């Protein structure tokens, strides 16, 4: 791939600089001391998993958030971007992960959004500029169409066109391919290269490895808010795709030396099959990917890992298993009993438990005390309720036991759960799912966003659960975690299971094989390659 051959030698400072930037949110350090420089004429890829800090960085560059520490620079001069307007005026345009268009307005209106209210819409001028853009970049848009009625790909083109109409110098594309078809993504890749050649600095945020290689000139890898590595243009050009992906995978998922236990667990799997999923499919829509043709079997004492880059149908699978999301076709069988039509409560009673990845928005009610949160899934059930009347002492006692057993740090059981840290909320939820007669537990990203100590405890608990003879489905985006805990690993991509591999703890080779499946290659193809 040839790029930037005819560019002037670039200034060492670059166009925008990020210098030692740190951003904290309650409970997490979203971006930790990151320094980056973006150059004109380059497609600079920011690669990382969900929660790696990419979106926060985008927020900082587009003026939505301001860093707690560190600063930004513009052509070498220290600068502040205190509002979206300041960012736009500095020549930075952003195409956000979630469309920032007004669906009820026309394309034309969205293109000029933000113009002074008293002005007349510059219809003729915009139409003329759009003609130019059509010639130069192949951007063709129906100006009078209602935006919400267009495809997501076209909507994205509106946002790109808007950036170009503003004569931006920097274009940020946040997870821009996540909503596009493979062909659409390909087109976008070519368009980015074209834009970079015309002198823009393009910042492309993605979690997809192959895209990073194919469309980027420079790759920076973020991991847990910090910069994990960088591949500069010369280096990148000299690598083959396989080699590049290998290097990136190592940066993203590489052996951690941070002390979490990643040693391979001894299998405790027995012969008895507890949960069987046959050809399961769920309905997808514009916002949510559906899963399709998923077949899995979980044995007692076994941990089945589900790997995959975030947003490839793992959550929908978990919800379908828990009964929160109706199955379109297929069967779910728990201990020989068909539970495909069973409700959430019925499945829970039969021992199927689901620990959601969204602790605050879904798993808990922040304003309710810890004690009530421990029984939210058993409302009306004895012994906590008798004839519908609450037994506060029973609930409090249960909560105190749980707090002790799972070493939850809280002043007492009456504290609103929203005041606790993420790790402690997670312990409460875990305790809730394990209470009573659990048989199969589905974990969705159980250690996501926790600190090291809590990660370690959580993993130990998951291992213990399996040793007790329960079946475990462990959904995670952390490959180290999966390789340390799982007996087998299923890899999901695009709503399908791309393959299931035996986890023999064989290290690098297996890791790479899983990484390739996560990038969308089927197990069979890999086997024949």
């Amino acid at each position, binding site marked *: 791939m040839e790029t930037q051959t005819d560019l002037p030698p670039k200034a060492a400072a670059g166009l925008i600089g990020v210098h030692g930037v740190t951003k904290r949110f309650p409970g997490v350090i979203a971006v930790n001391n990151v320094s980056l420089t973006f150059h004109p004429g380059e497609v600079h890829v920011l690669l990382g998993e969900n929660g790696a800090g990419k979106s926060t960085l985008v927020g900082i560059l587009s003026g939505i958030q301001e860093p707690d520490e560190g600063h930004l620079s513009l052509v070498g001069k220290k600068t502040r971007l205190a509002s979206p307007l300041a960012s736009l005026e500095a020549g930075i345009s952003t195409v956000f992960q979630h469309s920032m268009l007004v669906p009820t307005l026309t394309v034309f209106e969205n293109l000029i959004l933000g113009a002074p209210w008293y002005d007349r819409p510059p219809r003729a001028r915009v139409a003329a500029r759009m003609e130019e853009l059509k010639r130069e970049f192949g951007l063709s848009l129906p100006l009078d169409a209602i935006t919400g009625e267009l495809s997501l790909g076209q909507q994205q083109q509106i946002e790109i066109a808007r950036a170009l109409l503003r004569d931006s110098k920097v274009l940020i594309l946040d997870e821009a391919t996540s909503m596009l078809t493979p062909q659409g993504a390909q087109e976008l890749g070519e368009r980015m290269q074209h834009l970079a050649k015309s002198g823009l600095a393009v910042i492309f945020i993605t979690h997809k490895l192959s895209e990073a290689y194919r469309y980027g000139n420079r790759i920076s890898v973020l991991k847990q808010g910090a910069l994990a590595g960088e591949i500069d243009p010369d280096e990148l050009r000299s690598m083959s795709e396989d080699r590049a992906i290998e290097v990136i995978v190592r940066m993203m998922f590489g052996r951690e030396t941070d002390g979490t236990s990643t040693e391979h667990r001894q299998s405790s799997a027995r012969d008895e099959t507890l949960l069987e999923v046959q050809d399961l499919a769920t309905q997808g829509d514009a916002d949510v990917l559906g899963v399709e043709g998923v077949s899995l079997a979980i044995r007692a004492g076994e941990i089945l890992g589900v790997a995959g880059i975030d947003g490839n149908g793992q959550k929908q699978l978990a919800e379908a298993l828990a009964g929160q999301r109706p199955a379109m076709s297929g069967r779910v069988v728990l201990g020989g009993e068909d539970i495909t039509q069973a409700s959430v409560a019925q499945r829970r009673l039969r021992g199927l438990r689901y620990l959601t990845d969204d602790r605050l928005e879904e798993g808990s009610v922040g304003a309710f005390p810890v004690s009530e949160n421990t029984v*939210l899934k058993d409302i009306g059930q004895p012994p906590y309720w008798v004839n519908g009347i609450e037994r506060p002492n029973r609930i409090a006692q249960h909560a105190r036991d749980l707090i002790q057993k799972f070493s939850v740090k809280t002043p007492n059981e009456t504290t609103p759960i929203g005041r606790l*840290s993420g790790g402690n909320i997670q312990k409460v939820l875990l305790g809730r799912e394990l209470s009573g007669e659990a048989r199969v537990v589905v974990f969705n990203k159980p250690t996501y966003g926790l600190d090291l100590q809590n990660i370690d405890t959580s993993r130990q608990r998951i291992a213990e659960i399996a040793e007790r003879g329960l079946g475990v489905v462990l959904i995670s985006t952390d490959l180290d975690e999966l390789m340390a805990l799982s007996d087998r690993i299923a890899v999901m991509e695009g709503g399908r299971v791309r393959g299931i591999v035996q986890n023999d703890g064989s290290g690098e080779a297996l890791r790479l094989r899983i990484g390739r499946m996560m990038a969308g290659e089927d197990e069979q193809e890999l086997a024949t390659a």
Partner: protein
Amino acid sequence: MNMKNDVNPGALDAADQSTDNDGVITERSAFQRILTVTVGPIIAAFVLSAIILMLVGVNPLTYYGYILERSLFSELGLEQTATRMAPLLFLCASLIIAFRAGIWNLGTDGQFLLGAVFAAATAPLLVGVLPGWAVLLVGFVLAAVVGAVWSIIPALLKAYQGVNEIVTTLMMSFLGVLLASTLVKLAFRDPSTTVPQTRTLPVDDRLPRLFDTSISSGLIWGLIAVLAVHLMMTRTAFGLRLRMVGANPAAATHAGLSVPLLTMATFALSAGFAGLSGATEILGVAGNVRANWNPAYGLMVIPLVFLARFHGVGSIVLVFFYSALLIGSESAARRLSVPQDFTLVLVACLLICLGLGEYIDQRKRKKER
């Protein structure tokens, strides 16, 4: 009364989900918080109102003193205050259910009046046909059913179409008020009077008075209603389900609750209690409904329930003081020549001051992080 940033009243106290590393926020002293969010604003509101009184040339101390004397320190005043509380208490019960379950039922006025009119239309006809207690029972049940029926359209639209209930309940309220008035003038009109009004329930057939006083026993039923609703919302499985839907619908779905069905139940209960409120006023005190009668208690009680932070006992206390204020200011209107509408000013000041207090408190907490 966490009014910040949310149209969903049930999530009012859910707004603040702060976390820090492995522990709990270091609170400012509880005393300081109470000062900013309750005591301070209440004092500020009374001072603000006092300033307004002074501006129109009334000595606020005399005025406040007179109100106290008339409503709380005289036997008759106290009895009137207690009687006035009954319909307001039922409305509190109605709003506590709705607000705790995250529903803005702004339609209580319509539900109240329709309940009142149907109770007034039926009860007098049944006198002599049924025993006294049964007449009252039929009146109350009918009022509750009519109130609930009047909320069906907003309920269905909210539960299954996601249409904002603020607008729909408000519209249905205006419709209900007008329909009630039409019914009084046409279908339910007492043929023996010239002024349009319903037939009158004889005093002997109304709710009995308490002991030797003039207090309507509606007060007891109202107190029972508020306490029962409070206990239901805080102590039963059903109440917790409703509160969970109000505080976090996603978590409710996650826990396997049917959010639409619980939403329908909330509307039915809330509107039913509003209907009961209308019946208490008619079967307990007024005896009939005159055309165009609309005390507009519903909108008035909303700030009170809000100020009580949806708490049953808190609401009862506020309703007591508000009734006293109403009775006292009616008397003051005659003697001190200060219109009774001044109570509205006082309530508005309270609401604004408490809102500001809440805001200041949140700002301080944010800074501490």
